[in-house]
């Protein structure tokens, strides 16, 4: 795992640097390093640096949360987007932003995103847990549809006439035109949520043997569930409140890590976080480079990666299950 994480860390650095250079206006490295070009410095410090850091934070949150949820539910299809957590968070954020709550405090965005994520998680788990792999995913699909419809409804009633046009931002995700404001806003939530998620490693390992054996090994299952769900709600809830719902990163990242580090849940956590960050950075760079009118939403690119992968997973699941 160590060499994989180191390798991923290196790739991440490369991708981060590329992210600072790439865009509709390509910058040359000397512009940034030596700071002679004032315009380039402005673009990097005020636009691309916060954007790239956001991509890191959000991608890592999604990848890490996906790994934890897969370990918790012992379901290879689990991830925050598929379980409706992402759209739930987006709904919370939409209610906060378009109805003026964020005018009172900017933190209302991530806070309501957190609440939305928790509510969606609770609903999905109460509907789908204990019914097998597919049942949970179906419950998640139902909650996703419900919350997406909620977003459309809320935007229709929003005071701003632009609200209805912005629905694609919320359903597909976007990092366009973000600033340091958003970075500072979500950083505490992501760090605390991430910490919760990282603590679940050993408990998730024990859970490989099923709940009874895990309990017999001294694992506090309810504390595990709280850590996993609270961590997801904090990190993914806040991240989504700024970027909108981004799908598939949480699904793909852990699976990409498994061939390298094996299936032990605790060993997948860090690589999945790093891979999630990497995937999102790459998707964001791609979104910037495709010039078709307004910027293509991130979700288009994550779906391009994720949907074929998802189909492949489902087919494999069909083959291996009784």
């Amino acid at each position, binding site marked *: 795992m160590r060499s994989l994480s180191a390798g991923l860390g290196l790739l991440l650095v490369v991708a981060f640097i590329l992210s600072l250079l790439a865009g509709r206006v390509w910058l040359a490295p000397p512009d940034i390093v030596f700071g002679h070009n004032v315009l380039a410095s402005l673009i990097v410090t005020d636009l691309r640096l916060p954007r790239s850091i956001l991509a890191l934070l959000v991608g890592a949150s999604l990848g890490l949360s996906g790994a934890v949820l897969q370990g918790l539910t012992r379901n290879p299809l689990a991830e925050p987007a598929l379980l409706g957590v992402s759209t739930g968070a987006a709904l919370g954020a939409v209610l906060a932003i378009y*109805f003026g709550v964020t005018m009172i405090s900017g933190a209302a965005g991530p806070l309501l995103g957190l609440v939305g994520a928790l509510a969606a998680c609770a609903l999905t788990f109460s509907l789908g847990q204990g019914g097998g792999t597919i049942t949970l995913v179906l419950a998640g699909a139902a909650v996703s549809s419900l919350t997406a419809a909620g977003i459309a409804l809320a935007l229709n009633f929003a005071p701003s006439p632009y609200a209805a046009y912005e629905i694609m931002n919320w359903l597909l995700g976007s990092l366009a035109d973000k600033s340091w404001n958003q970075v500072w806003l979500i950083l505490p939530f992501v760090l605390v949520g991430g910490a919760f998620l990282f603590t679940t490693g050993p408990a998730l390992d024990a859970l490989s043997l099923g709940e009874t054996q895990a309990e017999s090994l001294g694992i506090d299952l309810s504390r595990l569930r709280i850590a996993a769900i609270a961590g997801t709600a904090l990190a993914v809830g806040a991240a989504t409140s700024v970027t909108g719902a981004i799908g598939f990163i949480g699904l793909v990242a852990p699976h990409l890590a498994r061939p390298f580090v094996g299936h032990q849940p605790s060993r997948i956590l860090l690589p999945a976080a790093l891979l999630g960050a990497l995937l999102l950075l790459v998707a964001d760079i791609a979104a910037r480079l495709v010039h078709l009118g307004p910027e293509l939403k991130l979700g288009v690119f994550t779906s391009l990666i994720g949907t074929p992968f998802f189909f492949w997973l489902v087919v494999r699941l069909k083959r291996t299950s009784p």
Partner: protein
Amino acid sequence: MTRGIGAALLLLLLMGQAIAAPPKRIMSLTVCTDELLMDLAPPSRIASISYLSREKAALKLWPEAARLPVNHNSAEEIVEQKPDLVLTLVYASTELRTLLEKSGIRILEVPQAVNFAQIRSVTRMVGNAVGEQERAELLIARMDSTLRDLAATGSKQVIRVASWGGGGFVPGSDTLFDAVLTAAGGRNITAHDTYYDVESLIAARPDILAFADDYIDEPSLRRDQNDHPLLLRLFANRRIVYPAAYAGCGLPQSADAARALRSELLQAMAKPGGVP
């Protein structure tokens, strides 16, 4: 034979009357034709104007709209109000056109005027149709005089302007905004209609950001773009607001809009700001 000549003369006279008599009940179905109509014809000859002319921003500039009857661009109202002339923009629905032809009601469809040459031709077109040719020429003459003034007193200073606040959409040439901006002495940052994100906007180095006054202040994601901290910093003193109505309909008053815009541009340029 005299009876024949007399009948022919009578017929000619009647026809001439029919051609020469200006329409007495004019219905306008769109805001742009409303405004031109209100400028050209007396209220007694206006049957109704579009209900949209009673929106706040439009009323500010044409307060008389409050006192005129309104229509909602519907066939039922046309049948009810029995106009003898209907004014609307080109591309009115084909059903409407067919209905009016069948009823024998005259319809004049005018194009959207996006530059001053088109403003002249549209004003004349409508002036002829409503029987106010003299007034139309008067308005055009006033407009041209203003334009000549502006051209004569223009400075060499290049003022690059971007119309912002439209979700990243910046109108290029072939738009009314561009025509007014050019007459005012500003230069559009783009030749074609383009989508800009904040990055490409500042890379285009505008001197001034121009916002239409129908800029809604309700919270939405558009704020992230319009009020990006970088833009707030660079353009704190370089933001101007122009009446959206003047960018919407090409009218003789567009020359006055250009004059007002010029003074705003010069005021803004007197303060520091823009992309270093």
